[in-house]
C-alpha cells in the first residue's frame, strides 16, 4: 500500500500515514463513510426498486404503441377510453393488430388470513399475441370465464397457501365473485400493489361491474413488422395523434410511455421525491462526517503543517495531502458500505418482496459520488490550514 501510494503520488504518502497512525480515528472515519454509503445505497436501492416496479407493470405486454386517457399518468391510473380508438387505429395501414387492456385494483383476503392489494389485468383471450412470450402459455388457461392466474410472488402469499390453492381446486372469492385459480405467473410485488392477477376481459368486467366493456383502460397497438425503426414508429405515433385527434387521449410509443411514467412517479409523486431527498441527506451526512474527521485531523497536525510551511511547502501540497486522505477514506469506506448495503438489499427483498438489487452501475456511481463528496469535505477542511502560521512555531 505504502509503496503503491509513494509511486502514485511521487512523494511520501503523508495522508495515508497520518490516517493509519491514528487507527481509532481512521476506523471512525471509515465507519462514517460506510454509514453514509449505506444510507445512499438504501435510498438508491428503493428508487431502483421503484423504477423496476413501474417498468414491471408494462413487462407482461408486448406492444409498440399505447393509447391511454389523457389523465393517465401511470399504467394504473387514469380514466377509461372508448374502444372506438382501437378500431380507428386498425384502419391505419401501418397498424397490424390492436388489443384492449383493462386495469383495476382489488383487495383480496387470502386464505392465510392476510389481505393483499392486487393489480388486475383483463386481456381478451384472442389478444394473446400482446402477452410476453414466457407468460403466454399460462395465459391460455384464463380463456374460461372466472378463471385467473395469480402472481406467485404476491406479497404475503406463502408457498403453502399457494400450493393448497392450486391443489385443492377450491374457488377464490374476490369482489364477491368465485374464481378458479388456473395457474401462476411470476411478476413480483411493487409499490402500488402486493401482486398481480391476470383474467380474461369478460372475467374482468364481472369483477369490476362499473367498468364498461366498451371503455378499456388502455389500447395496445402493434405495428407491421417492417415498421419497427424508431423514426418510423415516431412517425406512426404522430400520424395516429392527428388521425385520432382527441384531447381526451394520449398516444405514445411504449418506451416513451414507460419513460414518462417513471419520470412522473419519480418527480411528481411524493414517494419518488422523498427517496430522492433521502439520497441527498445520505450524501450530506457523508460530507459532514468526513469533514469532521479531516478538519479534526488538520487541527491536530497544525504544528506539523506550519513546520512544513516554514520549510517552503506550498498550499497545494497541503491540499494534496488532505485530498489523499479524503480519497482514501472514500475508497476504503466504500467497501464495508457496499457490502452492508447488499446485505440490507437482501433483507429488504426478503421482507417486502420488492425488487431491490445491487447493480454495477449503481456501485460505480456511488463510489464516484463518495470520492467526490469526500474531496468536497477535504476541500472545506483545508480552510483550517490558514491557522497553520509558521511564525507561531517560534
Amino acid at each position: 500500500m505504502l509503496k503503491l501510494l509513494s509511486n502514485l503520488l511521487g512523494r511520501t504518502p503523508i495522508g495515508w500515514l497520518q490516517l493509519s497512525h491514528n487507527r481509532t480515528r481512521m476506523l471512525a472515519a471509515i465507519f462514517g463513510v460506510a454509514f453514509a454509503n449505506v444510507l445512499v445505497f438504501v435510498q438508491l436501492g428503493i428508487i431502483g426498486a421503484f423504477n423496476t416496479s413501474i417498468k414491471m407493470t408494462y413487462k407482461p405486454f408486448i406492444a409498440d404503441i399505447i393509447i391511454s386517457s389523457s389523465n393517465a399518468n401511470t399504467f394504473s391510473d387514469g380514466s377509461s377510453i372508448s374502444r372506438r380508438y382501437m378500431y380507428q387505429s386498425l384502419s391505419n395501414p401501418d397498424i397490424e393488430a390492436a388489443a384492449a387492456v383493462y386495469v383495476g385494483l382489488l383487495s383480496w383476503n387470502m386464505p392465510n388470513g392476510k389481505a393483499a392489494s392486487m393489480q388486475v389485468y383483463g386481456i381478451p383471450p384472442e389478444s394473446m399475441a400482446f402477452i410476453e412470450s414466457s407468460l403466454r402459455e399460462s395465459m391460455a388457461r384464463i380463456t374460461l370465464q372466472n378463471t385467473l392466474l395469480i402472481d406467485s410472488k404476491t406479497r404475503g402469499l406463502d408457498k403453502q397457501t399457494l400450493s393448497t390453492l392450486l391443489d385443492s381446486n377450491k374457488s377464490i372469492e374476490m369482489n364477491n365473485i368465485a374464481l378458479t385459480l388456473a395457474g401462476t405467473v411470476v411478476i413480483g410485488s411493487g409499490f402500488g400493489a402486493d401482486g398481480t392477477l391476470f383474467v380474461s376481459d369478460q372475467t374482468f368486467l364481472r369483477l369490476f361491474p362499473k367498468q364498461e366493456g366498451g371503455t378499456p383502460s388502455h389500447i395496445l397497438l402493434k405495428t407491421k413488422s417492417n415498421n419497427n425503426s424508431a423514426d418510423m414508429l415516431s412517425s406512426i405515433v404522430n400520424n395516429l395523434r392527428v388521425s385520432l385527434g382527441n384531447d381526451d387521449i394520449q398516444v405514445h410509443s411504449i418506451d416513451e410511455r414507460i419513460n414518462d411514467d417513471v419520470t412522473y412517479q419519480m418527480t411528481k409523486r411524493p414517494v419518488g421525491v422523498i427517496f430522492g431527498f433521502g439520497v441527498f441527506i445520505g450524501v450530506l451526512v457523508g460530507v459532514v462526517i468526513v469533514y469532521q474527521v479531516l478538519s479534526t485531523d488538520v487541527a491536530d497536525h497544525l504544528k506539523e503543517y506550519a513546520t512544513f510551511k516554514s520549510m517552503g511547502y506550498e498550499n497545494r501540497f497541503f491540499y494534496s495531502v488532505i485530498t489523499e486522505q479524503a480519497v482514501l477514506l472514500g475508497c476504503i469506506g466504500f467497501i464495508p458500505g457496499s457490502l452492508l448495503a447488499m446485505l440490507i438489499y437482501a433483507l429488504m427483498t426478503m421482507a417486502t418482496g420488492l425488487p431491490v438489487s445491487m447493480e454495477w452501475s449503481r456501485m460505480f456511481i456511488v463510489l464516484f459520488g463518495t470520492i467526490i463528496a469526500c474531496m468536497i469535505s477535504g476541500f472545506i477542511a483545508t480552510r483550517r490550514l490558514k491557522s497553520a502560521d509558521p511564525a507561531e512555531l517560534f
Partner: protein
Amino acid sequence: MNSENAPIIVKNLDYWFGEGEAKKQALFDINLDIHTGSLTALMGPSGSGKTTLLTLMACLRTLQCGSVRLLGNELFAMTEQQQVIIRRKLGFIFQAHNLHESLSALENVLMGLQVHGGGDPQKQKKAARHVLSILGLSERIDYLPMNLSGGQKQRVAIARALVANPQVIFADEPTAALDKDSGRQVVEIIKKLGTQRRTTTLMVTHDNRILDLADRIITMEDGAIVSDEKT
C-alpha cells in the same frame, strides 16, 4: 568580509504588534549583518524581541518598516510565492522538534528534500540516511518519533533542517528540551556541519552552557540590541 555580501543584512528594522490603542512596538531600529558560516547566538530576556527578530529575518513574518536582505533578496514587500521559494534555502530548528508523528525518522528527514520537488527517491533516501548517520541515528532511521528520546528527536529535526544543505539555519532554543550533554552535543553538531558546509546559523538561546561554541553573541533588551560581541 564585505558586509554587502553577508547572507543577512538588517537595516532600520522596526516592528509592531497589534493595532490602534493596543499597538505595541516590539523592535526598535535594529541594524546588523550576519556573516557567512558563522554561529551567532541571540540572547536576551523573554519579551526582548529576539524571536520576533528571528522570524522577520527568516521570512516568516511580513516586514512593516525597515529592510531585511536575506541571501541577497529584499524581504520588504516580498510576495507569498517569493517567500516560499526563499524559505527552501533555509533550515529551521524549533524548540519543540515538530516532527511528524506518523512519519519515521527517515521519512521526516526526507520531507526536507522532497520540498524541492523531483529528484531521485533512492538518492534522496541515501542522503537522508547519511545525515542521520552523521547525527548518530543510523540505528533509528525507521523509528517513529514516539519511540525516540528527546535528544534523538531533536537530532532528527536537525537532520531535517540540514539534509538539503541550507544556506542559513534559524534555530529557536534548540537545546531547551535537552539535558546538558545532549544540548551541547546538538550545538556542536550544528557548528561542525556549519563549518564544513559554510552554513550560517542564527540561534536564539537562553542556555549559557553553550555560549562558548558561538562565534558571536548578540544580546537584546526591550526590542533593541544592547550588546554585540565576538567570542
